């Protein structure tokens, strides 16, 4: 693994996306539009102030997961993945290159989502907006790396698509959106404590209501960060140069 090869891969992924303006537009504004729809649904109630932060975690996470896993899926299907792995490209170069490229997009996407939520959709944030943005970006990068992990772990295209409900839906169901996590039955609450999306939602809600101090949010950020690193490492290890 070398910085040159990692950065070349990140640059290559970004050039690919730059050739497709519609994808960039969808990627950058779709989560924001979905959050806007939720804000509109609840416009006659006060519910958006409690649901809003969770939506800020949910949509960028899911969109980044889907986009990343489909992009790497394409690379597998067109044979370029096999070609690159027969060349002196480290498996880590590939996974980290993708993480950097999509991480950059995640920063832009989350900034738009946070900006629109706060200044247009009227989401009230009692804590620091910068902290809110930091958690939102980490959450979107998490979606990217889990998408990469799913794609590296899968052996076929169908498996990749199946990993999405397997990896994403349980996290949404147990993340505290449907039922606060402390009211989940014994067992499920413990499981939800281990899921990274739960921590992203908790952190965003904590910043929105300013109910916890910065150290708490930093701790949650650390947990998300560890998941990101773990996904990159496990993704790099499970990617196979030889296939049947």
């Amino acid at each position, binding site marked *: 693994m070398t910085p040159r090869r990692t950065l070349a*891969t990140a*640059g290559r992924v970004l050039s690919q996306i730059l050739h497709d303006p519609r994808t960039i537009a969808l990627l950058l504004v779709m989560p924001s539009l979905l959050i806007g729809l939720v804000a509109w649904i609840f416009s006659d109630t006060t519910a958006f102030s409690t649901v809003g932060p969770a939506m800020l975690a949910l949509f960028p996470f899911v969109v980044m997961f889907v986009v990343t896993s489909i992009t790497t899926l394409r690379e597998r299907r067109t044979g370029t993945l096999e070609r690159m792995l*027969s*060349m002196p490209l480290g498996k880590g*170069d590939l996974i980290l290159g993708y993480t950097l490229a999509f991480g950059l997009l995640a920063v832009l996407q989350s900034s738009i989502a946070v900006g629109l939520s706060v200044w247009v959709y009227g989401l009230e944030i009692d804590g620091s907006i910068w902290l809110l943005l930091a958690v939102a970006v980490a959450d979107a990068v998490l979606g990217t790396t889990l998408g990469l992990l799913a794609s590296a772990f899968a052996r076929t295209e169908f498996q990749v698509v199946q990993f999405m409900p397997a990896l994403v839906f349980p996290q949404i169901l147990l993340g505290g959106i449907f039922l606060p996590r402390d009211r989940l039955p014994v067992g499920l609450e413990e499981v939800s404590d281990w899921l990274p999306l739960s921590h992203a939602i908790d952190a965003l809600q904590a910043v929105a209501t300013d109910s916890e101090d910065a150290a708490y949010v930093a701790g949650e950020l650390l947990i998300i960060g560890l998941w990101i690193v773990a996904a990159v490492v496990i993704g790099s290890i499970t990617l196979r140069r030889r296939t049947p």
Partner: protein
Amino acid sequence: MGIIEAPAVVVRNLHARRGKEPVLHGLSLTVPRGIVMGLIGPSGCGKTTLMRSIVGVQIVQSGEVSVLGEPAGSASLRHRVGYVTQDASIYDDLTVRQNLLYFRAVLGAPRSDVDRVIEATDLGSSAGQLAGSLSGGQRSRVSLAGALLGSPELLVLDEPTVGLDPVLRVELWRLFHRLAATGTSVLVSSHVMDEAARCDRLLLMRQGDILADDTPTGLLSTTGTVDIEAAFLALIAAHPVTPDEETP
């Protein structure tokens, strides 16, 4: 490097499956250095599986594959072997030049190499076009250009001339021979028999086994035929398929 240079490829008793299907059953062969070696045989005879095993991307069941004196798939071989898959493996949403610039960066080849391979594959006029907008023949040339970057010692080319017009095909074969003359070993597969005559040496392959390993002229004289296709048919007649080979 020893005093006696190891052959480009040595395969001993190779067994491999493609998916779940056994494709290679104990195949052995040697590819000498510095020649254009043709791998000729009908579709489905195992050419691609053999080439994938040599490049080191195929899981093999048993047997030895050594490339340039090292086990196939070794990390040190990854910039010494150029591989072109049957379907062009390039990024359709990048331009020709962007594809090659990325491959170059990964290989650590000199910057000037990109222009050199664009010229060698006659892609100058389409260098700025998106690879996805090119014809099949142009796309396979982009794929080939990528394999020429960094001047690898061994080129493994899986049907690189399919779908190319005759003039270009002749040009590419000239290129393969120029590369061989400078010491590059070229292993090129084809199911087109008339291309076989252009090779320095031929491996005739059928149902996962090597039927013959000879020069084109040697092959014609031992079989008493006048073209490679007839020689191939004569060899098949001399080596009838055993019943257990026919069962899938």
